[in-house]
């Protein structure tokens, strides 16, 4: 039976993680642009943040530094704060307008 540590030592190259990160980011961006429901748009933002975190951590692993971990930790903190405030705004919008369609909530549009 082969040694488990030896098996796990085979590294996945950095570029695979970066390509995966690009794919996830693009899916999130596409959802952000085409969905009409505010809550789903908000979830797509979380998806994009997560994709960027993945590339931070992949680089951090490659360089053997933990600074990338710190950055993505801060991104998560900001995402949590953003989710709390954003969801409160969504609740207020729904209370005032009874709808969550993006095209209906366009008072700020010129």
């Amino acid at each position, binding site marked *: 039976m082969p040694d488990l540590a030896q098996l*796990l030592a085979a590294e996945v190259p950095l570029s695979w993680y970066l390509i995966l990160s690009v794919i996830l980011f693009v899916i999130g961006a596409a959802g952000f642009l085409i969905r009409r429901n505010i809550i789903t748009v908000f979830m797509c933002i979380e998806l994009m943040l997560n994709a960027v*975190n993945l590339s931070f951590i992949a680089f951090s692993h490659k360089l053997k530094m933990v600074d990338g971990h710190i950055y*993505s*930790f801060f991104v998560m903190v900001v995402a949590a704060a953003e989710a709390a405030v954003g969801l409160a705004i969504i609740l207020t919008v729904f209370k005032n307008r009874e709808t969550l369609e*993006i095209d209906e909530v366009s008072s700020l549009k010129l």
Partner: protein
Amino acid sequence: MTETVFFYCFAALAVAGAILTVTMRNAVHCAISLIASLGGVAGLYLMLHAEFLFAVQIVLYIGGIMVLFLFVIMLVNLEAAARERQFHRSWVGGLLCAGGTGAMLAWFWLRGAGTLRLPPAVQPTPREGGNVESLAMVLFRDYLVPFELASLLLLVAIVGGVMMAKKRI
């Protein structure tokens, strides 16, 4: 070999969850797909030896933020919205923009991969303890001010959330 197999499994989970998040009709299904996607990315964190962020991803993202999302989805009535058109009128343009961005990033990466000169990996002092210890050393020594600013940001978010959601202050 094993690591490659695990990478493919987690990557497939993450991408499939992301695609379902964008395409599902019901918002609750979107949230559950997003949880699957976040779980796949959490597995990738574990493969990259970011154990602390793996735990944070599970506890904070899946356990905190997504539950908050599900609460809000339950509070607002989305039955009418689920029956309507899900995608924007100009969805082709949106997809083209997003796809173009992705193609550009991938092209830069493929063409410029040779010119990307990463500095040689610094050999850290022999690590006693694991990822959490080394992270804590850096966080509380070099990044103490951003850490305190993050707590201030969370305080602002608490006050903002209460102000927004309450009827009368």
